[in-house]
């Protein structure tokens, strides 16, 4: 038995042709109607014009076709597969089959029976199935381990999805590399916008998106493209940062409804606060379970000095002063809470911060003039926080800029982007300095760090206070975005994202200690509950399950820390995903999609 043997015994050329044919058939099927009624979301009834879930199948099928063609070694396509060649095809075929299969299932389930399917669905479904089965006949990219017992079918299947890691890329001219980075962010922005713009009622489309995106991303990883792009972004860090900022800046211009822009703004708040938490948790290794309290301190401070009619302090600070006050008050609270608690280590610190987080919420609830002095208006919170007016722009109104209309959330989104940029800058610069190294050293081994001359307590307090300040900063804007601040917004765990548990989860899911991790984590953790409203009741349960799966299959998070990348790839360019050393890797893609 050869080690490269395919899962299904087919001659490779035939398997390749069959895969391509299957993908082409699936592609063609998306141009036919899949069902007879437009009751199913996305309107899959039109001939010649794919819609809704059909577009996802179409995308997956096109990619399958493209990567199958790469298998022929066509010049000019080789850059697509610096890593594996056949495992991406298998994964993409799986994406096609998964999306099509899910759609067929959903139509049959929702409209009551298979009779509601039109031929187009069958054409695509059968095409996808052929493509997938034929793809299994393509040889493996990675040999099976030669020693050990003969692999069973499942092991061989997982092996067939593995791919070798990529080597160093030939350097392109500088502008070429920058162009690639720009293109990558354009694609990312497009995918993000697509994802946000999925109507809230059409959870089918969102699930389909997760299936397609999860498999496609894994496929691109196996192909080695992701590794190449990551290598480029690490090489041109500033360009990447600017590209990301520009992409983020463009987002509100792609939206014409306030609803989805507001989602964008909320994700931005969530991500910014998560990045602040990443200083505390990711860099300094301090498990803070009450972090959202600092967001609350900032938000309440800003609300109190905003001139809101129910604010106990009837003053209206200019915005810049409110921001500074909010950040400063958060800083003070950070130091007050940090000073006594940071002498504790590990679990103790987690428990104490958890307690302080709750104390904040309870206190704010009680400072209502009845059970305490009147400061926060108790559980009613402080409503009707006036909109900002900066540089003569009223943030409460829509503004037309050329052909674009910027709604109220869009105004705030752009303001938040400034705050985010500040936090990003702080994270990067502090992390990449003597102070940041000391934090990481404390995280790694506190005793050794102190023996190297690091005043651990001072540096931990610094991280804690800095984290608090950043959260307070974000809070000052958040209070304006949400009109109202109430104690319930700032609890340990709740249905609406920025709460301590979700913040921590965003950091861990995205990747501790990384810059981009919290953004990806926050986007996923915000969008999934927002778009899948039917699972609202089980949200925390599913959230817990997802976290357990994450810890089991990808403990370093979606984006691995530069240091952890090195751990897996000592001698080549840093890449995004560890080489498929662990046999569970194949499942990781599924976990990612479902997380």
């Amino acid at each position, binding site marked *: 038995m050869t080690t490269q043997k395919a899962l299904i015994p087919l001659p490779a050329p035939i398997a390749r042709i069959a895969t391509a044919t299957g993908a082409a058939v699936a592609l063609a099927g998306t141009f036919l109607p899949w069902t007879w009624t437009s009751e199913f979301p996305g309107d899959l009834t039109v001939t010649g014009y794919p819609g809704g879930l059909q577009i996802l199948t179409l995308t997956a099928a096109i990619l399958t076709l493209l990567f199958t063609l790469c298998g022929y070694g066509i010049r000019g396509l080789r850059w697509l597969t610096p890593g594996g060649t056949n495992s991406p095809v298998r994964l993409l075929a799986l994406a096609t089959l998964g999306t099509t299969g899910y759609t067929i299932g959903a139509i049959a389930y929702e409209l009551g029976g298979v009779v509601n399917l039109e031929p187009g669905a069958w054409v695509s479904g059968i095409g996808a199935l052929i493509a997938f089965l034929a793809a299994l006949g393509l040889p493996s990219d990675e040999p099976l381990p030669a020693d050990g017992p003969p692999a069973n079918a499942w092991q061989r299947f997982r092996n067939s999805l593995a791919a070798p890691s990529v080597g160093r890329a030939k350097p392109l001219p500088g502008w070429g590399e920058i162009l690639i980075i720009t293109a990558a962010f354009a694609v990312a922005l497009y995918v993000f916008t697509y994802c946000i713009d999925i109507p809230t009622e059409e959870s089918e489309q969102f699930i389909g998106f997760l299936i397609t995106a999860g498999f496609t991303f894994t496929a691109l990883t196996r192909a080695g493209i992701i590794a190449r792009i990551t290598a480029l972004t690490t090489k041109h860090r500033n360009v990447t940062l600017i590209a990301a900022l520009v992409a983020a800046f463009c987002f509100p211009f792609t939206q014409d409804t306030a609803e989805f822009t507001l989602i964008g703004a909320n994700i931005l708040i969530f991500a910014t606060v998560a990045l602040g938490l990443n200083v505390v948790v990711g860099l300094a290794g301090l498990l803070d379970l009450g972090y959202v309290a600092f967001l609350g301190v900032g938000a309440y401070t800003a609300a109190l000095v905003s001139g809101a009619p129910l604010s106990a302090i009837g003053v209206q600070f200019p915005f810049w002063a409110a921001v500074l006050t909010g950040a400063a008050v958060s800083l003070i609270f950070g130091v007050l809470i940090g000073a006594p608690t940071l002498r504790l280590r590990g679990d103790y610190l987690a428990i104490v911060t958890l307690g302080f987080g709750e104390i904040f919420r309870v206190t704010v609830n009680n400072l209502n003039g009845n059970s305490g002095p009147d400061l926060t208006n108790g559980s009613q919170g402080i409503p009707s926080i006036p909109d900002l007016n900066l540089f003569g722009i009223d943030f409460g109104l829509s503004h037309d800029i050329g052909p674009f209309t910027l709604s109220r959330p869009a105004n705030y989104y752009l303001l938040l982007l400034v705050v985010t940029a500040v936090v990003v800058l702080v994270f990067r*610069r*502090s992390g990449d*300095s*003597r102070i940041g190294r000391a934090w990481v050293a404390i995280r790694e081994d506190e005793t050794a*760090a102190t023996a*190297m*001359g690091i005043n651990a307590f001072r540096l931990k307090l610094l991280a804690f206070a800095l984290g608090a300040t950043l959260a307070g900063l974000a809070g000052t804007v958040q209070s304006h975005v949400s009109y109202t601040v109430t104690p319930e917004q700032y609890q340990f765990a709740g249905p609406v994202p920025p709460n301590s548990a979700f913040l921590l989860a965003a950091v861990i899911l995205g990747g501790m200690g990384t810059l981009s991790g919290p953004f990806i984590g926050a986007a996923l953790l915000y969008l999934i509950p927002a778009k899948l409203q039917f699972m609202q009741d089980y949200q925390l349960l599913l959230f817990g399950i997802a976290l357990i799966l994450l810890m089991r299959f990808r403990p370093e998070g979606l984006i691995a820390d530069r*240091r952890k990348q090195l751990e897996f790839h*000592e001698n080549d360019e840093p890449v995004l995903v560890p080489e498929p050393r662990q046999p569970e890797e194949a499942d990781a893609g599924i976990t990612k999609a479902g997380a």
Partner: protein
Amino acid sequence: MTTMTTTTNTTTTVLDASGVTMRFGGLTAVRNVDLTVNAGEIVGLIGPNGAGKTTFFNCLTGLYVPTEGKVSYKGTVLPPKPHLVTKAGIARTFQNIRLFANMTVLENVLVGRHTRTKEGLWSALLRLPGFTKAEQASHERAMELLEFIGLQDKADHLARNLPYGDQRKLEIARALASDPGLLLLDEPTAGMNPQETRVTEELIFAIRDQGIAVLVIEHDMRFIFNLSDRVACLVQGEKLVEGTAEVVQSDERVIAAYLGTPFEGAPGAEEVAEVEAAEAEAVASTGTSPKDTTTTEEEDTR
């Protein structure tokens, strides 16, 4: 500068520990130990397992607050705070390697520079003029040290992925990064093969030649007698003898402590050689076993 140590008031004394006692509940791990190290000296500290050598080191470096006694460095009494001790000029390595496993080799050494650099948070955030210069200087110094120990080619590797011998060396480089006047090495050759041990020996001599005094704990008798100008032997927390290699080597109590039985008759040169040979053989035949024992042994540093 305090009382009674008038004789050591010469500039040559780097470390002066007097009456250091460490009790853990009923157990006295270190009992009334005096030890001085002079500039340019390599002093060895030997003793059987559990004699209290590591505990004594921890007392010197502030990881433990000694129950009694005081430690002074170049005439100044040291506060029992590890970071202040390092700042004063004493650097150390650990018996069970304690590198920052997920940091690169270079970063590990840069962390060692912490006390010798000043750039604070503001400087880092605003990238004040001094910042880049200071970072560059730190990098240069760190690379210099890596070259010194021969790890310059592995600067970007993760510390955890280094081979065992390199990890030990890196720990020394990290300690040297704080520009110490005194280096404390806790069993630097534990788990090393004879060749690596020889390299380490050369390294320690080279460090001494840079004007850094060295206090080294070691099990390998041949290694320590070769290396040290002076050797002190700790048994059950007490300092038994101190003197040149010959004196300690021929002390009956030391031999008894090591071999477990009283030694009869005057120890002639032959016997000493015999003991030495047996010792070396034991070390060679057990191979990696010292490493295994040490990890369990030193849970105590915290």
